[in-house]
Structures are given as C-alpha cells and as structure tokens.
C-alpha cells in the first residue's frame, strides 16, 4: 500500500498549488489548426502562447480555446510530433481573438513536442541534446528498414552496414564507440518498450556455419511505415532516464496512432528494381593467362600458356555477372485510422504491410509481413486505456556471401577471386572448384588458390532465417488531480527465431563436410515489461511551469536456444529437414538465459518565466547481470537552459526569433554483458571408478561480485538558435568519458582459472554537432509559390582510448582464418580499433635504387631489394625492416559525417534529395590482398595488371608480377590495401506529385500522391571496392572498417503512390 500513501502525499503537497493562476488584463484566443497540405483539421495539437505557460489541446475539429492570455501582441505556437506552425495574434483584455494555424512538417525544429522517455516535452523546454529525425521521408519514400531512416538524418548518429544483404546486420553509433568488448548499439525504445539491440544475443546461433555467414538485423522486423516519430537522445541529461542502458544513446520510436475524426484509409505502395552500384574491374581469361606467364618468367621459369593456348582464350567466365542480378523490391501497406471525441473517445490506427525484396546476389531475399493495431479508449474524463500491438514475420534467405578468402570465401569474395578459366558448370552439371578442377580445362593448378564455386554457393546453399515477433503493451492512465497522471503499463516482446542451413554436396563446404551439412538453430526470446509512472505537469502561477515524472519499472528477458546439426547425408533432397538421417550427427545444444532489471526513475523539469530551464534526471537501476555486490547503480544528471531570446535585451532583435543555451552533465551506463558473467560456473567432466563411468563437476569460472556496468559521464554544452522564424541552428559540444570498461584479463593460473571479465580501462569521445534547418523559400498559404527547405547536419567525433587497465594494447581476434591476419588494435592514446601494418614507400624503380637500398635488411621478405619490389618504410630508422616497423596506418573512425536534405516544392510537385557522407575514415580492403597479389593465385585487378612494374614501366604503382603487393607472409599487411573510405553520396532523390486538394475532395479523396525515388543515386569516393559504406565485421567495436567479400550495396529506382480517403 506504499503507492497510495505516496500518491496521497503528493496530492496533499500539490493541491494548494493548483489554481494559483495569475489574474489581470487577459483575453482569450480561440482558433482552428489545419494541415497545410490537405486543409484538414488536426486534433491533439498542443497550442501554446509564447512567453506564457498557457496550453491547450485541439479537439477533433481542430478547435482550441486559450483563456487568460495576457493582453498584447502574442505568438501562438501549435505543434504535434513532426509538425509545427506559428501565428501572430493581438489579444485585447476581456475579448476573444481568433486565429487559424496551418501546420507543415517541422523543418525548422525549434518547435513541436518531443518524446524524451517516460513522457514528452515541448522542444523549447528541452535542456538536453535530443535530435528529432525527420520522419517525413518515412511516409513519402520507400524505406526498407529503420537504419535507412537514421542514415544521414541526425548529427552524431552514424549508421554502418555489416552486410548489405537484404535483412543484413546494421550497426549504429551515437557519438562514437564507448566500449571495447561490450555492445555499443543504442537502446531502442519502441512505444515505451526498451529493446536492447544486441545482434549476438538475438541470433539463433552460429551452430558451426561456415565463417562466411552473415549477421542478421534484429530490428528488421519493425515496419518503418508505422513510425510516427523518432527521437535520438544523445547527452547525459537525456539518456540518464534510461540509467544503466543509456550510455550508447537512446532511439525513441513512436508509432502512428489514431486521431479523432472520420475513418481514414491510406494505401502506400511502391515497386522498384535494384542493381549493383559498381563492380571490380578484373582481368579476362586471356589477360590473366598473360599475367600468369609473366609471373612465371619473372620467377625464372617458362611461360605457362603457349601462344596457341593464349589464342584460344577469350574473356572467360565473368563470375560477377554470374552471381549478380537486377532484383525487384515491392511494398504495400494499408492503414485505417480514426477516432471519436468526447470523454469516452476511441482512437485507433490499424495497419498491415508486406515488404518483399530480392537481393542483388542470386539467392538472397527478404520478406516482411507486419500487422499493427494501436488503440486508445477514454473511460470517463479521467481514465484512459490503450494498447500498441505489433505482429511481424520476417523471412530472410541468406547466401554465404561475406567474409574470408580462399576456400572459406563467400560467394562475393569467390566471384572476385575465381579464375575466369572455369565454366560456371560443367556440361554434366557439376560445379567446378578452382584448384580441384583446373586441370580439366587445361590450366596448371600449382599456384591456384583453392576456391569455392561462387554460383554453387549462391544457388545451392539453403540458409533461411525466420523471425516471428509480437511486440505490444497495454496501458491505463488516470488523472488523479488536474495535471497529475498515474500510468501503468504492461508489455511483452516475444520473438521466435530460427536459422536453418544446408550445404549440399554441390558446394565445396557441403562436399567436404562430407556429403552435406545441415544446421538448425532456434532462439526464443520473451521480454516482459511493467512500468508505473506518476506525471505532474502544472503551471505554478503564470511564470513557471513544472513537469515531474517519477516511476518504478521492471523488465525481464528470457532467451532459449537450441541447435542441432549433422553431416554426411545419403542425399541432398531433404536439405536441413531430416537431420536424423545424418550419418554423423553433431552435438545438440540448448541454453537458457534470463536477465532482469528493476528501476526507480525520476525527472524534474522546471521553467521560470519561460526563460530559465532546469532539469534533474535520475535513475536507479538494479540489474541481475551485475555482480552480487554491484547490482544497484544510480545515474543522475543535471541540465540547465536559458532562453536568451525571452530576455528584454534580445526581444527587440527581430532577427533572433529564438535563442536557447543549454548545458548538461550526468552519467549513464552500458550493461554490455551477457547474463551470468559475474557468477562462478562449473562444468562437467567424465571419470571412472573400477571401470564404471561417472560424471564429475568442477569450477571453470570464478565469481566477480564487483562486475558492473561501463560508466559514461558526459558534459554537453549547446545552443538552439532561431533566425527570422525561418532558420534554426542547433549546436552541441560534448565530452564523453567512459570508465570501468569491461575487459577480459588474465588471472594467475595458480588460482585455478585463466581469465575473468573485469571493469578496467577508459575511453573518451569528444565532438561537435551542428544542425541547420532553413526555410529558404517559404510558401506561406500559397501552393503556387516555390518552396525550398534545407537541412544540414554535421558531426565530428574524436575517439581515444585513455586506459586499458594497465595494458598498453589489445589486439582483436584475427581477421581471417586463412591468413591469420591480426585484427585491429586497441592502443592507449589511439582511437578504438586502428589498423596496424607497414607503410610503403613506392616500388623500387631500377637497380640503381635497389643498390641504394642495399644497406637495409628486410626481415619481412628476407631478401635484398630488387627492382620492382615494394619498399617498406623503416619507421624506427635502424636500417632493418621488421615487426617493430609496423605502425598505425589507418583509422576506421570517420573524422566527420554529413547529411544534407533539400526539399523543393512547387504546386503539387516536390523534389527531395538527401546528400550524405562520411569523411576521413580508412577501409582495409582485404579483397585487394588477393586481387593485387603478385602470384596470380586468383584473378587480378585490371589496375594491378596495367600499372605493374616492368623494366619498361619503372615508375609503377604496383610491384612487378610475382611480388606480393601486400607483403610477404600472411601475418601482416601494408598500406597498399588500405584505402580512403571517404564518400559523399546522393542517398535518395525523390520526385513526387500530390494531386490538388480541391480536385481530390470533390472525389472524396483526402490525398493522392505519386513519386519516383532513386536511392544510392550517385556516390563520389576514391574507394575502389563495391561500396565505401562497408564493414564486414561491423556489428562489434573491433575489426570495423574491413571489407572482405562484403555483399555489395545496391542502387535502386522505385515508383510509388500514397493514397488516402
């Protein structure tokens, strides 16, 4: 009964404050709010008067009345998520002034209401760094998944694809990476339900799949068309309300809900085609044969191919052609929404969607079926009840496309490497493998890399993932007193995932398994959430406003996994469906994990004279995942804002319509650990007594009762500036320090253990963010005028490891099992995950230069320099090239990122384009390891062949054929395979036409719109791979920015329509 007491106490304290409104010369403002585009009235719009605390909500007819507005010229603001508008009005004492507001999408984002977690705030009252993503594109253009909405949309939010395969994994970083071993993905909150997007925790398990398997994207089940608004919480003031899970930033997603009014039926549909943006330019069969001859003669041998053989060779097989295709995508979505008015109102929004995408690599596909019902019911004047329910089913067909080289290559990597000599299939239907089958086409095999057949992987492997997900919550709220609302919600997130894979014997992994390999894995995830909050939102007199939220919430999450596998099947016909027929069954496995979180949270927003803003936020989290002695943590933050524009000395400055400076400081955490990491663990072992087997148990993991969250403290200073009511500027500077990083340390083996996860080490992220929104040309009320809105965001982040708990360096796990290349390095003083290798100083031009270099001992190649060799830079200047000359040669973290959205409108036409870019990051293009290798064990880049060193072409970019570009051995690399990953791209370009409202209304239609969209229309980059937006191992913090057989990004053109009646 604690709650009633607390409530009663709150009521007792707050009751006297109610009704203490200022009296004086006031009048009334009444009016209507309309949609600028459709002319329809808008309900649920918050209407305020600048400089006062007066607020009202519009009804179903879009009408509102504001009483007790101080007399004089006033600005009336109207806002709804994603929309805003203002109007000027003169209020006379004791009289009623009327005004009509037309709302347009909030391009100038200093108005409106934003979701801040456990409530909403007027943007002008926000003291933290909160980016509202422009979700206009969601309704108007084809968007396959959430990441495409976030890409380039908000300053400081960086989106990377781990694989461009349909349904493939994505990785999002808000203000840089602040963990080494932990998950750095932001927390997603969908209609109040927090979802920790850890691809590893969500996956149905690897189950022994080939390393070339692709991580999937657990957020793919969310239908982006259902999204109403997205807010990204970035600074400590904003994220502290999510406590131990806020340190990586929080993405708050609110889905569409019904509005009062007659039923609206919308149909949104599009269809389009995708194709690979760019291909590698590789050698034809004849050219490669000539190159192989040169390799041989350069090594003192005889040509491999005779002139007669050369003459029979043509272009050979183009393996890229063989696996790439033009692929269609389509989507159709229907939505019905509406609602009634009154105290017992009903509001509903129900939608169903179908999205179907084929991938540009044969065999890949993604399908999503989604259903959503958001309902709200008023029960009398004080009670409300509602649900948000979403059901979805995702089917993804993967192909082993990404990762590794040689015989572990995926289809894409193999298509680049494969010699053009072999056909896709022999006449008897057998898929040839490079290495094994070259002799059959008369090509010597001695030097050839063993490879898979790319087409057999793409067409023969079955690798299906399914995700059936139910995400929903039900809530009830009760207005205890005017302004005091209690809310209870209960929700659940249930996901049933599987991944079934079969490698038939027509593929190399299947043949060598032997005779087929089948793997089935499932993961069932059930997360349950309860939230109980009290919100008090009240004017304390006319000059100050108080918004208080307090609450208690808990969440549990249980994940169960099973996996079965087998190899050696009599026939491939059953695929993965009959594992019992495997001659060699694999070891089955099953696991169950649970975590729980229990939290108390609170936030106080106080504004005085609408000028001085103060926010205190705190959350106390108790998490099962932390050690016994560290279960509870407190995450406080404080922020202050000052509306300078409301001060008398700026009121007269007409240019400045709004100016707010903000500062915040606080803490948030990153739980980052899987359950049970802090516990002592036992495992089993067999023994026997007198020949009778027994099972024993023994300790393999030591408890760490102190294991706890990674703790991030962040200072943020910024300002929001509005100019001439048509431009807005938001600027933030931040300094984020993360301590107690989760690191694995070696234990003394005398303890009986080897390693433990501990909290040690620090990382800092510093940066600036700038957003500019500009109504270059305002249309006002006239659709005939040309409108032009423009929005730019810019972010610069500096990431630095400041401490590794006593160590100086940590090396990530090796990049490739084939090459044993060391992973990226975490070194104190450097950004996370830098590339370490040799610097090169060109190619030895001639024997004179070789002689001059004669004094240098090269322990990498163990040979003296010869003309046509790659020169490695002697970094430490000791005339010896050895591992001590390896140095930091690149950084996968961009120096800055950029997004620039432009929208032009004229009559019903609109042209919208998004330019987006990333600058200053390097990519380790491991495809070049083979494609620029000297021994022609695989196909070669045309560039490598044409720009090679020969005595006639001494000033060459690449060494002579026969010399490995990358360096000798397979444990290091040099900067010749490191490339500048900077790019600027026209991400989307949409031309649309909306039919005139009057013309439509006559036909009973509210809105009709047609559009054509191109995505990835143009890219400006020096990167030579398929696409600079790549990170083959991209979902972790280490080994980012590596391209090894990555699935190529696609360019697409779609045609679509939106129709509402």
């Amino acid at each position, binding site marked *: 009964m604690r709650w009633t007491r607390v409530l009663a106490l709150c009521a007792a304290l707050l009751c006297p404050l109610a009704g203490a409104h200022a009296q004086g010369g006031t009048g009334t403002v009444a009016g209507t709010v309309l949609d600028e585009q459709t002319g329809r009235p808008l309900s649920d719009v918050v209407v305020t008067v600048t400089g006062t605390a007066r607020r009202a909500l519009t009804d179903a007819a879009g009408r509102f009345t504001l009483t007790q507005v101080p007399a004089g010229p006033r600005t009336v603001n109207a806002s709804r998520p994603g929309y805003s508008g203002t109007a000027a009005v003169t209020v006379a004492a004791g009289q009623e002034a009327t005004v009509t507001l037309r709302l347009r999408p909030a391009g100038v984002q200093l108005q409106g209401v934003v979701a801040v977690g456990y409530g909403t705030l007027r943007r002008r009252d926000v003291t933290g760094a909160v980016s509202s993503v422009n979700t206009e594109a969601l309704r108007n253009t084809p968007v396959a998944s959430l990441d495409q909405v976030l890409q380039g949309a908000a300053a400081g939010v960086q989106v990377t694809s781990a694989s461009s395969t349909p349904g493939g994994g994505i990785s999002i970083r808000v203000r840089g990476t602040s963990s080494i071993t932990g998950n750095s993905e932001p927390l997603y909150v969908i209609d109040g339900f927090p979802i920790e997007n850890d691809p590893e925790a969500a996956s149905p398990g690897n189950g022994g799949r080939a390393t070339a398997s692709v991580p999937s994207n657990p957020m793919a089940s969310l239908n982006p068309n259902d999204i109403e608004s997205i807010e990204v919480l970035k600074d400590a003031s904003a994220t502290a309300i999510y406590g131990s899970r806020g340190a990586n930033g929080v993405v708050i997603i609110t889905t569409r809900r019904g509005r009062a009014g007659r039923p609206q039926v919308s149909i949104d549909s599009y269809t389009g085609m995708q194709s690979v943006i760019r291909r590698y330019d590789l050698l034809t069969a004849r050219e490669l044969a000539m190159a192989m001859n040169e390799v041989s003669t350069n090594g003192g041998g005889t040509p491999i191919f005779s002139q007669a053989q050369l003459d029979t060779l043509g272009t050979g097989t183009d393996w890229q052609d063989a696996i790439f295709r033009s692929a269609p995508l389509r989507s159709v979505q229907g939505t019905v929404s509406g609602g009634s008015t009154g105290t017992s109102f009903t509001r509903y929004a129900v939608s169903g969607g179908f999205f179907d995408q084929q991938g540009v690599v044969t065999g890949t596909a993604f399908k999503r079926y989604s259903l959503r019902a958001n309902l709200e019911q008023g029960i009398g004047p004080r009670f409300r009840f509602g649900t948000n329910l979403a059901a979805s089913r995702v089917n993804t067909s993967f192909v082993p496309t990404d990762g590794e080289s040689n015989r572990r290559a995926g289809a894409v990597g193999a298509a680049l490497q494969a010699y053009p000599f072999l056909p896709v299939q022999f006449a008897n239907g057998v898929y040839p493998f490079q290495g094994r089958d070259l002799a059959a086409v008369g090509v010597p095999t001695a030097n050839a890399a063993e490879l898979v057949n790319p087409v057999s992987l793409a067409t023969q492997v079955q690798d299906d993932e399914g995700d059936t997900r139910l995400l929903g919550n039900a809530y009830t709220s009760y207005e205890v007193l005017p302004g005091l609302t209690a809310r209870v919600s209960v929700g659940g997130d249930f996901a049933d995932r599987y991944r079934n894979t079969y490698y038939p014997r027509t593929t190399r992994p299947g043949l060598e398994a032997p005779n087929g390999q089948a793997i089935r894995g499932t993961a069932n995830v059930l997360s349950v959430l309860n939230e109980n909050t009290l919100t008090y939102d009240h004017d304390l007199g006319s000059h100050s406003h108080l918004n208080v939220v307090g609450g*208690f919430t808990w969440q549990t999450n249980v994940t169960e996994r099973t996996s079965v596998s087998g190899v050696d099947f009599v026939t491939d016909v059953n695929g993965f469906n009959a594992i019992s027929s495997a001659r060699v069954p694999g070891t089955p496995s099953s696991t169950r994990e649970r975590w729980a979180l229990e939290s108390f949270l609170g936030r106080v927003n106080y504004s005085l004279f609408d000028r001085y803003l103060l926010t205190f936020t705190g959350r106390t989290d108790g998490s099962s995942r932390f050690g016994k002695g560290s279960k509870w943590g407190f995450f406080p933050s404080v922020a202050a804002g000052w509306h300078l524009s409301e001060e008398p000395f700026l009121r007269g400055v007409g240019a400045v319509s709004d100016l707010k400076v903000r500062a915040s400081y606080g803490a948030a955490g990153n739980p980052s650990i899987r359950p049970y990491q802090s*516990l002592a663990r036992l495992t089993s072992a067999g023994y026997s007594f007198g020949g009778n087997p027994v099972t024993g148990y023994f300790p393999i993991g030591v408890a760490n009762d102190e294991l706890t969250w990674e703790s991030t403290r962040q200072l943020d200073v910024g300002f929001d500036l509005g100019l001439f009511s048509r431009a807005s500027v938001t600027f933030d500077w931040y300094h984020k320090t993360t301590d107690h990083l989760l690191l694995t340390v070696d234990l003394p083996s005398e303890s009986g253990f080897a390693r433990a996860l501990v909290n040690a080490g620090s990382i800092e992220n510093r940066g600036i963010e700038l957003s500019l929104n500009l109504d270059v040309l305002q249309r006002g009320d006239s659709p005939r005028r040309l409108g032009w809105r423009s929005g730019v965001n810019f972010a610069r982040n500096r990431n630095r490891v400041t401490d590794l708990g006593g160590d100086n360096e940590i090396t990530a796990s090796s990049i490739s099992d084939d090459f044993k290349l060391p992973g990226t390095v975490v070194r104190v003083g450097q950004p996370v995950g830098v590339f370490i290798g040799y610097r090169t100083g060109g190619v030895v031009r001639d024997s004179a230069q070789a002689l001059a270099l004669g004094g240098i001992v090269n322990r990498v190649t163990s040979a003296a320099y010869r003309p046509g060799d790659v020169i490695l830079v002697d970094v430490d200047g000791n005339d010896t090239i050895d591992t001590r000359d390896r140095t930091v040669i690149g950084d996968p973290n961009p120096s800055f990122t950029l997004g620039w959205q432009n929208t032009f409108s004229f009559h019903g036409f609109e042209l919208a384009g998004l330019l987006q870019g990333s600058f200053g990051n390097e990519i380790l293009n491991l495809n070049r390891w083979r494609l620029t290798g000297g021994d022609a064990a695989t196909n070669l880049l045309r560039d490598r062949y044409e720009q090679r060193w020969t005595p006639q072409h001494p000033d060459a970019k690449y060494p002579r054929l026969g010399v490995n570009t990358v360096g000798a051995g397979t444990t290091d690399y040099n900067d010749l395979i490191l490339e500048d990953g900077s790019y600027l791209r026209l991400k989307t370009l949409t031309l649309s036409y909306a039919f005139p409202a009057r013309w439509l209304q006559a036909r009973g239609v509210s809105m009709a719109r047609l559009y054509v969209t191109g995505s990835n229309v143009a890219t400006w980059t020096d990167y030579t791979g398929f696409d600079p937006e790549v990170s083959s191992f991209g979902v972790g913090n280490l080994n980012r920015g590596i391209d090894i057989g990555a699935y190529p990004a696609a360019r697409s053109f779609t045609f679509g329509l939106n129709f509402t009646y």
Partner: protein
Amino acid sequence: MKHRIKALALLAAAGVATAGCGDDFLTEVPYSFVAPENLYTSGDGALAALSGAYAAFQARVSDLGISDVDYYGRQYWMLTEYPTETVTLRLGATNERTMPDIFRVTPSHNYINGVWRAAFHAVNRANSVIDNVPGIAGMDPALRDRVVAEARFLRAYHYFNLVRFFGGVPLYLHETRSLEEIQKPRATQAEVYNAIIQDLKDAAAVLPAKYTGKDVGRATSGAANALLAKVYLQFGAVGGGGAAAFTQAEAYARAVIASGQYSLLADYASVFDQNNENNAEVIFDIQNTRTPGAGGYMCDQFAPRPLPSQTDFPYCDSQNPSFGPEWPFFYSYAPTDTRKAGTWLMTYTKKSGATVTWDSTQTAVNAYGNFAPVPNKYMDKVPGAQDGAEEPNFILIRYADVLLSLAEAINENAGPTAEAYNLVNTVRARAKVGPLTPGLSKQAFKDALFTERRWEFAMEGHGMFDSQRNWSWAKARIEQYSTNAARTFWNRPRPSGCSSCIPRDSSVPKVTLVLDDHYLFYPIPQPAMDVNPQLVQNPGY
C-alpha cells in the same frame, strides 16, 4: 474523493501486483550450467564434485586453455622421464621436446606452464570440494568426511608434484571464489611439504583401507600412508626435512606393509596389464577407461611408426612416437630381467601380418620412424583406442615403490641393514634377477637402490624426482650415459656383421651435458611470472 481513492487503490494494486519484485528478482539463476550453489546441496553433488577433482589428472579444460596433453596426457611424462639417462625422444636438437632431455628448459617452455596450470587447476578442484562439502546440510557425515579426505589426498598429490617440479610454490588452500587477493607469493618448500603432510595425515585417519565395486580406485588410507612415506623421503632429501623426515618415512612405509592390503605380483608385466587393473600391487592409480574424455591420452606418444606403412601398428591409431630408451640404459638390464620386456615393447605383429621384433639388427630408421623400442607400460593394446579414451590406468603408487622406499628410509636412518637388503632383493627376485651385491657401504647401497629404481620404475613418472633425492649420483650417471636426442638413434651400437645397418652419423654433434645444480628444479613458467608479479624465479634461470 471516494472515487478517487478507489482509483488510486486500483492503480497501486496493479503496480504492486505486477511488480512482485522480491529479493530473488535480481538473483541470477543459472539454467543451462551448474553453479556451486546448485551442486553442493546433496551427497550426490558432493560425489560429483569429487569425481571432478579426480578427473583433474586428465586435464581437459579447453575454456581455461588446459589441454589433454598438459598433465598426465603427455607433459608430465616428458618432464619426469626425459631428464634422466633412461628415456629419450626422437627429435632434433632444437625441438621443444629436446629441451628437457638436454636440460635446456627455459621459463617460456610450454610444457612447464602446462603442468603448472593443470596442477594448480587440480588443486582448485580439490579445494572446492574441501571448502564446500562440509557445509552440505543433511549429508551422511561418514560419507561427507570421506569425500573431504579423498579431496585432501588429491590436493596433497598435486602439491607434491608442484613442489617436486618447481620447489616452493604459492599455497592455495581454499577455493578461489573472488578476484580479491588472487595473487600469492611462493611459499617455502617446507611450508608446502607441511601442508601436504597435514592433508595426508588427516586423510589417512579418515579413509578406508579398501573399496569395493563402484568405488574401487578411490584414495585409501594405504594410499595416504604410502604417499606420506614418499613425501617424507623427498622432504628429507630435497625439502630440508632432515633426519626426522626419514624416521617418519620409515614409519609410514611400515604402516602400509603392516596393513596387509598389498603384495607384489609374481609377474612384473602383469602389474600393467590392462585386463588386470586395480590388482594387489596397485596402491593408487588414475582410473582411465574407454569413455571419451575419461580415458588416457598417451597412445600416439607410445605407438611406433612401423615402416613402410606408418599405420600398420595394430593398436593405437595415430603414431607419434616420443619415448625411447637411452641405449646404455637399454643394454644395462640383466639378461634375465623381466622388467626389460615389461617396460619396453620388444615385439608386435603388424596389421599386415608381419611380426616386428626389436633386436639390434633392425634397420628401419627415419626421423619419425621405428627408432627404438616403445614403452610397453600404459599402452592400450586393444585396437581402436581413441585419444582421451584409452583404457590402461596410470599407476601412481605401487607396492614395489613402498618396499624400495622403506629400504631407502632404513638406509638413511640406520645404513644398509639386512632388512634393507631383503626389501631390495624381494623386488629383484620378482624381476628374476639375483640378489644385490652384499656388504655395500651406505652410499653404495643408496646408489644401487636408486639404480634399481631406474629399472623398476622406468616410464612410471618417477625419474626426475628420484634424481633429486640422490642428485650427485644422478648427475654423474646422466652426464656419463645420457646421449641426446639428435644422436640417440644414430649413435646406437652398430651390430657387428650388419652391413645394411645405417652407420652412425658423426656429423651430428654430441651435446656435452654438464648438469648445474639449478636443474634440480624447473623454472617458474614465464606466463605465470607475467601475470603474478609476486612470483620469484628459481635461481639459475
């Protein structure tokens, strides 16, 4: 107001009911693994933990980087047998296996770290039982005390290995339960010996003299007493235990004999017969069985590579022969000594049918070839043995060891008495060898006794530790007789009249061994030194 309170109550009830967060809400309950609190709840759990402690001899913990070969799966045998004049290997002068053979083990040598971490891990397994089992409520007290006593025997055994390999080592006498104070400095040898002795005395007082049925193979009071005798001998000779230790050694050896539980088998080879396990001579052994993960892991180290087909050996599947006799030692057995054929596999029939008999005319030699007789003890001689699932038990203490230990103790206490002679001659007689030369001085008797131990216990993992107790004798023998890897098989005596035999390769230089006293112990492994800065390296390394 009534209405309001009703609504409040409703909300509050909803909040409280759905919350229901008791103390257990944040407690992590492991579902798919076992935590100590789940295991130590019953007698069955206690026995499972104890079985886990026994299984530590087999050292398979991939999660901790401890592999099959780190302890009794290979490294233990190599580290105890190579640095003697009895056993050598087949590889060249730079191979890591050669290093213990030629006394060039450095702190970074992989094998010593293997034994170090496997033995300490085994200690922690025993500590877990010793710390947790006494607290199990409702368990049969007699069983509880026996389980703890068995674990104390095991802990003592592993510490005895550690103190003999490395000298004083850190003493961890409680389970590692947290990361606090996890690094400990080295204790002195005397401290380690005293801890071992305390454990064994406590164990001997509780353990039964004999087990039957499904308990055969557990530590007995006889095992504890026999180990006490061996521990006191080592303590007296190497660990600074002095004369008092030899008196104790004598007493405990006599207690084993007086128990009447053990006897010498008539046939030496039958002691090691895998169809005659847990026989009357066995006092304590590692119970291997043909269950994957619960058996031995030595076959591929023992099996020869018959030429020309390397897979023609009838028993073990993989052939990676690693142990051969040093030739001077091999030829030192008396002609009638049954221990030569009992220790070394002298003849076998290949799968293809031909019989291979080791004699000095055999010429099939290559770098990985059939270079010498291979060990006969502990080789699984039933075809189909898999790595980690080999049947033969590894005998750690047997009755002949107690007899010779008593003789050694008597000689230390009172010189070569008739009883001491009688003990040695009993062992010799079983091996079909005549009595020892009478009238030896105390030191000469001691040397003869240790030479006897070489013949009796070759390939049983005692070699290095015996050398420690009679170091000057051992040094002289090793410097004189031990050849080294690269020359071992090349330098074998070329039988007269064998024109096809491979001549000795004089281009391979012989390494002259000069044994410095620091070779008495191995160095502390470098990986351990790196992680625990409190460890101090042994002198000379």
